[in-house]
Each structure stands twice: as structure tokens, then as C-alpha cells.
């Protein structure tokens, strides 16, 4: 088998705080094959966001290695796209200009016209056709998050990092966006890491779910979702999904220290 596109090996990281060193990651490992989509779940404050910054090259681990596409990550590279819980759109730009922002940084051979076409194509893909000239303040939370998603993939990044992008949305909008994600992945294949607190979201979107332990976090449990590619919302209500949900919930309880580890060791 080929080498995974994202490979994280034995990463340790600690933050310097006023009360001393605060270790957040301790022996984390993660491997995502090309075209794979891994969800990372874990208790609050277990260092999930630190993980995204490590993959993006915004942070250097104290120990261990992060590899992207067979290359050791030493600093930020333009092959990464990011989206956060806060859509962080630039209020002084139109939606189209916001989506085109990464193309102003990443060197591309595209002409201005081609860039615009690309951005418009993505906006149509996520259902924002006709909103390209609006300002972010004129859009709803879900629409802003869609635009943020377009911006994250406009430069065709090899790796898409999603840090709880749907966490602040209401339940219906969230389910809408889950389906949008599958539509986007079908048309614009990417290798992705999704940080989330929502186990249903992880089961619906990812093909592999990684449970992190409490802080300092290591990889505690990895679940293969078996199902690849697009799926319906009904998929969440099959007995198989219910079983997976139960296992994940137990794992989170262990990570939180609310259940003993040996009880569910299988």
C-alpha cells in the first residue's frame, strides 16, 4: 500500500504557560491515505486544535514528525486548506472576493478570469449561486460557513483541515452542510481531517474515526467506518451506526476518565 498522505508519528507538544509546561499532545499518531477523510473526536480541550495547527505547519511539535505527501512538514505550505468554527470571512470583501483570497497568496497559473470561474463554480456547488456579490454580513451563519468551505478548497489543497466547522450551526443547517460536504467531495476530491465534537457528524462524514484521550492526548481508539463515499442521512439510523455510536460514546467516556478502560477493551 502507498504511503499515507497525512502521517503523524509520535507527536508530543506542550505549551508554555504561566504555571509551567502544559502538555497537550503525547504520542499522537494518525495516518490518512490519499482521498481519505478522518474525523478526530475527543474530550474538550484535549488538543484537537493543536493537531490542526501541526498539520498546517503553523506549529512545530516538540517531538515527533508530521509528514504530508512524503515530505516532512517544517513550516506552512500552500497545499493546505483550512476552515474553522468561526467562518472568518473578511467583511470588506464580497463573497466572491473572499473565496478568491487564497488564490492571491498561492502562486497559480490561472488568469483572473479563470480564478473567478473557479470560485463561482465552487459557490454554485455549495448552493451559493447568486450570492457572489453579497457581503458576509448579509448571509446567514450556514451560508457563511459554505463560503468559508469554498475558500478552503479554492486553491485545490491536497489536505483539507476542518476544525469544528459546523459546531455553531443549528441542527438542520448542520445536516444540510453534511450533505454538501459529500457533494463537494464527490466533485472535488480531497484528503481531509475533520475535528468535531459531534459523533453523528463523524459517522456521517468520515471513513475513519480517531478518538483522542484526555489531555495530554494520544490516539486512544481508531474506528473504521466501513462505508466509503456519499451516504444518506438515513445511514445514521441503521443498527450498524447505532452500534458504532455506542462504541464511540464509551470511548469518549474513557477519554474523559468517567469509565474504566478495561471494561470495554475488546
Amino acid at each position, binding site marked *: 500500500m502507498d504511503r499515507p498522505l497525512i502521517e503523524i508519528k509520535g507527536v508530543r507538544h506542550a505549551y508554555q504557560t504561566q504555571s509551567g509546561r502544559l502538555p497537550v499532545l503525547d504520542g499522537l499518531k494518525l495516518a490518512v491515505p490519499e482521498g481519505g477523510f478522518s474525523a478526530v473526536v475527543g474530550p474538550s480541550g484535549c488538543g484537537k486544535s493543536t493537531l490542526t495547527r501541526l498539520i498546517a505547519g503553523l506549529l512545530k511539535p516538540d517531538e515527533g514528525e508530521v509528514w504530508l505527501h512524503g515530505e516532512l512538514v517544517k513550516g506552512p505550505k500552500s497545499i493546505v486548506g483550512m476552515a474553522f468554527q468561526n467562518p472568518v470571512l*473578511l467583511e470588506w470583501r464580497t463573497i466572491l472576493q473572499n473565496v478568491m483570497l487564497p488564490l492571491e497568496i498561492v502562486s497559480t497559473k490561472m488568469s483572473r478570469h479563470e480564478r473567478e470561474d473557479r470560485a463561482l463554480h465552487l459557490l454554485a456547488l455549495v448552493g451559493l449561486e447568486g450570492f457572489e456579490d453579497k457581503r458576509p454580513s448579509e448571509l446567514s451563519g450556514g451560508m457563511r460557513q459554505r463560503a468559508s468551505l469554498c475558500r478552503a478548497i479554492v486553491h485545490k489543497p491536497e489536505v483539507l483541515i476542518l476544525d469544528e466547522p459546523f459546531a455553531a450551526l443549528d441542527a438542520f443547517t448542520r445536516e444540510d452542510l453534511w450533505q454538501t460536504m459529500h457533494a463537494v467531495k464527490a466533485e472535488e476530491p480531497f484528503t481531509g481531517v475533520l475535528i468535531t465534537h459531534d459523533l453523528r457528524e463523524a459517522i456521517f462524514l468520515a471513513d475513519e474515526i480517531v478518538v483522542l484521550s484526555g489531555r495530554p492526548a494520544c490516539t486512544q481508539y481508531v474506528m473504521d467506518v466501513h462505508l466509503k463515499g456519499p451516504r444518506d442521512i438515513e445511514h445514521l439510523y441503521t443498527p450498524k451506526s447505532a452500534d458504532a455510536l455506542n462504541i464511540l460514546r464509551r470511548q469518549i467516556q474513557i477519554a474523559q476518565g468517567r469509565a474504566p478502560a478495561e471494561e470495554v477493551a475488546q
Partner: protein
Amino acid sequence: MTWKQIAVPIAALVIFGLFWELLVWVNGWPNYKMASPSDLWPAFWKFRWLFLEYGWDTLWRTVAGLVLAVVLGVFLGMIMGLSRVMRDALYPLLVGFNAIPKATVVPIIALLFVGQHDMNTILIAFLISFFPIAVSVSIGLSTLEPEYRDILASLGASRFTIFWKIALPKTLPEFFGALKVAVTLAFIGTNLMEIVEPHGRGLGHLFDSGKISADYPLMFAVLIALALMGILLYYVVVAMEKVFAGWAERAPT
């Protein structure tokens, strides 16, 4: 802009003037106690050329002081906003300096650079007005959410690119808020110096002349002229804000 947006403030000014006139008339105050608006026109007319000449002096000195305040205030704000160490180092100094009444700085400056009327006046206008600009820019920059930075940083953008494309435009609303405060402060600075300096020019000097010759309507006329110039400059800033930071204004819902 609708006619209402123009008519309402003008109506307020007229009502204010009428109320003032009435107050003076009811109390029977002579004009050496309190001039009424009807006393001001003769004063304006009598000294119309001086008003034009000195008004221009005051205006350009104030604007020059403001430009200096914007340049140095933004520069200081950038340093403090982008560097934690510089923020810790400079804030006490700036706050301390700003707490000093500028009226006490005026004679110091006047003695330091004797006879340099223009420079002294501009200097005081600058000293009194750069503080809000420096503070607002530094707050705007230091409160930038890390995600904004990460979006460009993860693409390998330089610090300058991030500053230019995100941090700077995002700080503009705060900057213009501070500039509105700075405009009125700068006028105070200019006039402090113009009033104190002997053989000076500008509306402050005209005020002083009115005081010496006990021409009370003239003194009031100067104050009104200053108020009008303050309003004028304020709306220039508002217009600039509309152009450069109009996006921050939400459409009424």
C-alpha cells in the same frame, strides 16, 4: 443622503441658536456678559478678512497636526499591536504622557522653539491627538482572532501580507472612530498654542485679541467659527470613513 438627514441637524442648530438668543434676552444680559447670536454677525462682518486669514491658519495647522498624529499614531499602534513586549513597554509611557494637561506643555514648547509659530502649533495639535489613534490601532491589531491569521499563514503568506490584507483593513473602523475623537482634540491643541503665543496668528490669536480689547462678541464669534470648522473636519472624516470602511456599517434591518 436624504433631505431629512440634512434638515434635521440644521433644524437642531437653528433651535439651539433661538434658545440661546432667548436666554440672553430674558435675562437681559449685556453683551460683555454673554453675547447673543444676533451680536455675532456684526463681529463676523467687521473682522471678515481676519476670520478668513486666521481661520485658514488654524485649519491647515490642525490638519497638519492631525496628519502627523495619524502617521505616528498608526506607527505606534502597529508596534504595540503586533508586539507584546512593545505593548508592555510603551503603554505606561503613553498613558503617563497623555495624562499631562497639554496646557502645561504649551509654554514648554513655546520656549523650546521660540518664534516657530507654525511648528509649535502643529506640534501641540499632534501631541494632543495621537493618543486615541495609537490606542485604537493597537487594540484593533492585538484583538485580531488567530483564525484570521491562520487562514493566510497556512498558505505561507508573509507577516506583511497578513497585515496588509487582513489586519489593516480590519482595524479601519476602530481607526476612524479614533480619528473622529482626534479631530476635535487637534483643534483644542492648535488653539491652546495660538492663544498663548504672543505675536501669533490663527483664530486662537484672534480670540486673544478680542480678550485684550474686551470685544466679547468677537470672542464668541471665534468660538462659533471654531465649532463650525470642527464640524466641517468631522464630516470630512465621516466621508472618508464611508469610502474606506463603509463595509462596517450594517444595513438597517
